[in-house]
Every structure is written in C-alpha cells, then in structure tokens.
C-alpha cells in the first residue's frame, strides 16, 4: 500500500509518444468505406510509452486493499484467498485461444471441465441440474426468478406474481423480482433474527410465486424454521429460491436441496474462490430441482457415452424444452468457471466440508473474542454462521462514533473494513466475515485493533471521525461527487470538467 497519489494516465500523455511494439507492423490504407461513415474526431486515448503504462498501473494497484495484501472481513462477500493455481491453469493457451463458436469437437477439454463442475455443484447443493451461464449473482437471481415465473405460466397459473423477500435481504433480491415482472412482499425478522413465521403465514397465498431466502440469512444466523417455511410455501403452490450469497457457511455440511429449495444460485466468486477483480467478473451458476429442469437457461453441457468414448455437447432448446433461453452472448463467464473447477478439484469432497467448518469456527471465535472485549453482537443468544453482526449503537451514544467511523479507522490499522450499515435493520452494524483461510493470529490482530480503536475514541473521537489518516486520500466527499458530476477526463482543456 502506498500513500502516494498518481496522476491520470492522460496527464502522462505526450503528443507523438507511443508503445509502438504493441500495434501491427504496418497499417495499410482502406479506401472503400463511404466517407460519411468515417471517423472525423480524435479518439482521445493517451499517448504514452510501455514503461509509462506499466509503471502507472502498477502504482495504481498499490493504492488498493486486496486479499493478497490485507485481511478483508467484508461480511456477505466471502473474501477468502484466491488460489493462484486457479488463475494459472484457467489461463492455459488452449483455453484462452478458444473461440466460443468454434466446433465442440475442438473444445472437449473445456467442456469436460464444465460438465464435471455441473456435477460437483449438483452434488454439493442437492439439486437435480445445474446451468453455469449466469454471469454474476444478480443474474443468477434473475435466472431463478425467471424460471419460477415460467414454471407457473407453463402450468397456466398466471395469477402468481408475488415474490416474498425478507426485509434484511440483499437489494438485488427485490430489484430482481421487479425485473422479472413480480411484486415484492417484504417479510419481517423475529427477535432471534429468523424469518417471522407468523407474519409469513399471513402473506402466503394463491398469488405467491415464491420466496427468496438466504440461509444462513444476512443477519448471520441459520434459519431455524426452514423446514416449516419450505412446507408452507410448497403447500401454497409457491417455489423456494435460495440466494447463495452465504453458501460458504454450509458447503458440504447442509444442502439447499435437502431444505426444500427448488432453485438456487451460487456466487462462484465467493464460495468457489474465484477472484472479485475489484468488482467482477463473478459467476452466478444456478442449480434447480426436478420441477425446473426443463426451464434452465442454455447453454448447458451434456455428456454422451458410446462404448469407450465420451463426448460433450452443448444442450440447447431441443434438450431443455421450456428453457428461459440464453442470458449471455456465449457461455457466461467461462474463464471464471474454469477457476472454480480447479478450486473444487483442489479441495475435493473433504475440503468442501472443511470450508463450512473452518469458516464457522473462525466466525464464532472472532465473535466470542469481540464479545469478551465488550462489544455488542446483534444476536448474542445465537451461534454465528460464517459471519455475524456487531452493533455499535452503544458506542454511537456514549462516544459519538459509529460503524462508519470504526470502519475508516480500521483502514489505518491495515484491515479492510467489515460491511457497514447492512443489513439496514440493525443500527450501527458491522457485518463481519473472516472466512476459513485466515489464521487465528490474523483474527486476534483484528480484535486488538478494534479494542485499540475504541480506546482512541474514548480519548478523542476525531481520531475516528476524521480517519483514515494513512492512506493515499483522506475521507472523500461523496455528496460533492454526486452534485458536481465529473465522470471523465476531458482532453481539450487539459483538465476535468463537469458533464451534468
């Protein structure tokens, strides 16, 4: 981590400078395009040398916190170590050079990996089928709800347009339900953090298309009444959707299929340790129960055995008769799927179970230590899942410092902040997820930092409210950013200008 700021690449630009080795050796003239179709303005790209580029972006990388450099206990995001082998092996030339529309005969290696990944994901989630195409968690959610909608419509059950969503759910849940043409019905949580079953019972009915649940929930506890909820929804004719954001908590220990879920999405960039990349690419592979097998998005990889030989082929509309269709131009985030495949093979079945076990051990240990240090947890009577919530309501009242202030000061101590102010229903909350790949020493260090920060708050609240101090920039003015929109560098004047 550097504390130096870096100019924009455009400010390094000098007219006529070029990284000439990168472009084709010669550029022939093209004279058969209509004049009116031709470009008549500058491109506006920087003119820099290769060293300028390498140095600039290396320096920018050093202004990031990342798993490779910092403990990153960001609740609900599962920031565990991303094994380097996954990247190396997914980047072999045979895979990178494959055109998505090249014949399947020349893609059997990649397709074998996808097929086996589908099978492993089926097994570990207890589902009947898996489609790997959704490109992120939110698209996986869209896929799930679109399948639920299509299922009801295929049965002539056109009145079902309500999706039940717990009030503490991720924002993607209600946003997805609306994109699928459904109405959102919110369900409150009870005092223990579980879905309020009595309230749910009142809202379930003939218009219920389904329910979207995260289990363990976003409140960091396992839904104790899940079997009762599942029975209630199914008896009402609805289906259950499992949001896999928190699958890391139960991998290899408990399966959504056994809980009664009809469709699930998995965030392979969380549970299967593919990188977050500063905001993607993710992968939101979906699993379905028997009822939804014919509705899966395509393409899916099928396997055919004939004597000794095995071939893989793309399944399409003919194989998946009610498919909700294609959701990406080609095969979703194929390279991410290869990384998840390598990770799954490196873990194996014992390793998968250990993911849930050690994620839960680390989380409960961290929760116990913070409680012992005098911090309040949101659900003190409950066991933590792979994550838990600390509420700083008391510190806010007594010391005038809140969750956001602790978060910013943690950055100064070299810890990425936990998730703050989510879920919305717990005041001044920190949602903390240590993951299984962190050592006891790292967790102990985080506890010491939390204690030290609270001590600082007792002496001078400004140490927190004005933090961070040790990063390339201090606290940034987000209100001004939204008010005076500056979304791009403008070359003409040499400096940035407001666009709206």
């Amino acid at each position, binding site marked *: 981590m550097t504390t130096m700021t870096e100019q924009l690449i455009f400010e390094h630009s000098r007219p006529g400078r070029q990284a000439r080795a990168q472009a084709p050796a010669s550029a022939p003239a093209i004279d058969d395009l209509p004049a009116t179709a031709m470009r008549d303005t500058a491109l506006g790209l920087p003119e820099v040398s290769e060293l300028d580029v390498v140095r600039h972006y290396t320096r920018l990388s050093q202004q990031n916190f990342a798993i490779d450099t910092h403990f990153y206990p960001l609740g609900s995001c599962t920031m565990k170590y991303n094994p380097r*082998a996954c990247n190396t092996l997914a980047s072999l030339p045979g895979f990178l050079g494959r055109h998505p529309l090249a014949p399947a005969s020349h893609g059997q290696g990649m397709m074998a990996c996808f097929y086996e990944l589908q099978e492993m994901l089926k097994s570990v989630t207890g589902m009947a089928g898996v489609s790997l195409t959704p490109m992120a968690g939110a698209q996986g959610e869209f896929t799930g709800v679109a399948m639920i909608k299509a299922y009801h419509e295929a049965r002539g059950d056109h009145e079902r347009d309500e999706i039940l969503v717990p009030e503490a759910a991720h924002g993607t849940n209600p946003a997805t339900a609306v994109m699928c043409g459904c109405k959102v019905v919110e369900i409150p949580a009870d005092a223990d953090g579980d879905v309020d079953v009595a309230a749910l019972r009142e809202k379930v009915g003939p218009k219920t298309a389904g329910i979207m649940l995260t289990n363990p929930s976003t409140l960091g506890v396992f839904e104790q009444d899940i079997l009762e909820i599942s029975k209630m929804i199914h008896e009402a004719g609805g289906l259950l959707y499992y949001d896999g954001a928190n699958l890391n908590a139960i991998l290899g220990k408990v399966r959504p299929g056994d809980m009664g879920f009809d469709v699930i999405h998995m965030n392979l960039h969380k549970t299967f340790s593919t990188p977050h990349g500063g905001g*993607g*690419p993710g992968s939101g592979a979906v699993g379905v129960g028997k009822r939804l097998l014919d509705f899966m998005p395509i393409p899916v990889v099928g396997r055919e055995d004939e004597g000794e030989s095995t071939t893989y082929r793309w399944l399409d509309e003919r194989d998946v008769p009610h498919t909700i269709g294609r959701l*990406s*131009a080609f095969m979703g985030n194929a390279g991410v799927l290869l990384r998840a495949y390598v990770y799954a093979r490196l873990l194996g079945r014992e390793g998968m179970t250990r993911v849930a076990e050690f994620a839960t051990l680390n989380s409960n240990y961290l929760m116990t230590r913070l409680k012992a240090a005098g911090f309040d947890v949101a659900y003190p009577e409950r066991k933590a899942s792979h994550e838990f919530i600390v509420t700083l309501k008391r510190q806010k009242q007594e010391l005038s410092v809140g969750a956001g202030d602790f978060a910013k000061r943690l950055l100064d101590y070299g810890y990425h902040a936990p998730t703050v102010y989510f879920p919305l229903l717990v005041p001044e909350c920190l949602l903390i997820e240590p993951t299984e790949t962190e050592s006891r020493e790292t967790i102990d260090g985080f506890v010491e930092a939390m204690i030290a920060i609270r001590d600082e708050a007792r002496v001078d609240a400004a140490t927190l409210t004005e933090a961070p101090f040790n990063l390339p920039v201090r606290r940034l003015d987000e209100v001004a950013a939204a008010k005076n929109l500056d979304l791009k560098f403008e070359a003409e004047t040499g400096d940035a200008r407001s666009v709206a």
Partner: protein
Amino acid sequence: MPFIPHTDHDIQQMLAAIGADSIDALFSEIDPSLRDVDISAVPERASEQAVTRLMHDRASQDAPGLCFIGAGAYEHHIPAAVWEITTRGEFYSAYTPYQPEASQGTLQVVYEYQSMMTGLTGMDVANASLYDGASALAEAVLMAVRANRKSKSARILMPASVHPFYREVAYNICKNQQITFETVGYDETTGQVDREALSAWADEDITALVIPQPNFFGAIEDVDALTDWAQNNGALAIGVVNPVSLALLKAPGRWGHGEGADIVVGEGQPLGAPMAGGGPYFGILCCRKKHVRQMPGRVVGKTTDMEGREGYVLTLQPREQHIRRSKATSNICTNQGLLVTAATIHMSLLGNTGLHDVAVTCAATTRDLVARLTAIAGVEKVFDSAYFHECALRLPVAAEGVLARLAERDIFGGLDLSRFYAGYENVILVCATETKTEADLAAFADALADVLAHETEAA
C-alpha cells in the same frame, strides 16, 4: 488442509475460547435431519501437481485452430503487459470499491476507462461496465423505456441484422416488462437495415430503434440516416458497436444531424480480453448526459478529500439496487471490473495510432481474405455493401459440411449462417483480424478450394 492454516493446537484453543466441544457443535442450531450430507459425487481432493497435469491435458484437447470466426468474439493480439498487470493481486483479489479510500487504484482505473470509452464513442458518459455486449443491449432497451418519457408504447424496433444472440438475450431479459420487440428486416442486396420496412413504422409510437454498426453481417449501416429517422420519429437511437471499429468509423456521438446516438452499447472483448471460450468479457454502455440518471450499473466520479486532494468514488448510487432496492434501474451489482482494468491498460498501450492501425489492418486483412476466397469458383459475396472486418460469403454447396471438413484440418472457416437465417444454407460469415498472416489466408483459401472440389465432385 488446502488453504486452511489451522493447526490442531489452534483448533483446540479456539474451541476452548468459544466453549464448544467440537466444530460440529457449532452447527447445532441446524435441524439434525439436514446435517451430514452425502457429497460423494465430488471426487477426492487432488494435489496441485495432479490438477496441473489434468488441466494441461484438457487444454491441449482445445488447442486452437486457425480461426476465421468472428460473430461477436474476435481474436486480437493482446500486449503481454495487459494481463501481467491486471492479474497483480492488488487488482485481482480486491472487492468492489465500497471503501473508496482503500480502493483508489480500482476507482481511478474505472475513471480512466470511462474517459477512454467516452472518447471512443463520442458520448458524454460511460458506466463502469455490464456483463457482456448482449446483456448490455438488454439493459439499454430497459433504459430507453425509462428515459423516453414521451413514448408510451415500450415498442423497440430491432433489426434482423443485429447479432441473433443479442436479440435473444434482450428478449429473454426484457420479456416480463411488457416491452414489444418488432423485427425490422434487412435488404437482401446490401445486408443493411431495410429502409422500406422501417418507414412502415413512421407514424407509430416507437420507444427506440437499435442501430448496429457494423451489423452482424459485417456491413456498414447508414447510421446517420437511421439515427435521424429514430429521433425524427420520437424514438431513441441505441447504437450497438464494435469498439475497435470506432478507431475507423464515425463516433456514435456524431451519428445523424442532431446530437448523436442516445445510448451506445457494445462488446468490450476486442479490447484486451482473450476469446476464452466465451468469457469473461464486458459490456460497454455509454449515454448522453441527459439520460445519466436512468443509466444502470456503477459509475465513478471525481471528488476531493477533506484536505482538498483529488480522489475517486462510486457515485450516483441512489440508482442502484443496494440503495433503491425494488425501484433500482437494474438489479446489477457485480460487473466485470477486472476486464475493464485489462481494457484500460490495453487502450493505453495501443494509443490513438495503435488502435487505428489495428482497425485498418483487420479491415485490410479481411479484404485480402475475401479476394482470395471469392477467386475460388462458386464462392461469392452475399452483399454488395461496404464492410468492416467480417463478410458473408455464399458457397456452391451447404456450409455445414464444408465447415466440418475444414475443422478436420484445424481451420475454423467461419460461422454457418443457416443456423440463424432461413435460406442461408450455403452462407458463411468470415472474419480475419490483424492476427492473420498472408500464409494463414493462403492456407484457408487452399483448404477451402480443396474441400469444395471434393464436395462438388461428391455431389
């Protein structure tokens, strides 16, 4: 234990601190009937050495042939520095920049990306990316319905010359939103949007017209006329572009005689992403400033810190799902950040001249290829219009068998268009980027001549 650092001693100490007898006891709140599952279909763990061997075997089965397929994914040279820098752990293993002070690297990269993409497209604003070109078109359609408040119809005119998969994806993502897609045919002589078919809609309430440039056949559309038509009829103009072509072709911000296209989307893959079997790529979305609050996805803005230093943050977040929930402009959360990092480095390395040289070399190489292939008896161009780096060719026999024979020689001789268009059993869509040498073109032409000689003989 792979990737888990705990010693036996750690485990005992941690359980003692918690006051639990075993790790299993931590799962006691879960109904016993749900626990201890059978996941025996997952194989036993393999060592890194064994998995390395396996993946090398698999990758060698996919050894690339000589590829002349385009159709939405293009083989370009990617400078070595692009992925060397992009896969640095600080970019690769960072999260979405929700803590801006700890994420200035990623945020500045996205701001630079937005600046480059608005430069390339001539548009006012770019977002931080969507999933891919096809889903970006779907989001553009949803955005147009929100942004065009004068139109009540939610009717989208979709030319048949837009990538067939993009049309499918747009339909699949929008189908529960009461949006109507009307197909506009293409002129069988030029391959361009059929202007007569379009004018039939002149007096209707149209929300947006989709304008591909170049279109799926590689043909150059009359984007000025199409943009004017849309805007004169109260519709928004949504451009679907190939970003590399923009180094040669008119920026969408200058299409027509008004203020240019309203929304522009495209597949970002040609800017530094390997073909990689179909992804990860990234979706480009740009728009005019008056539509910025209807834009889906993340966007980065410049601001200052409490000491007046410049810095970058995610902005306009009230459009997004984590704030607006069911009223958000889209459900998108994670996008394709790492691919945007690669694209930004890629564009920096190429610069204005380099990207232009790539574009013209692609165009020239494809012209060379088309000349060689049409010199073979019975092979001819399907359309007579100008094209960028793809061209539809009619063969004397059915394409399917010919392409299969070529694939046996490890040549991917283009895409069989009969899969998408009736009556095109003999038509292939070919592409030759700057990666193809004269020897490659000659090898393809020789192989095609040979295969056709056998096929016509057999017939």
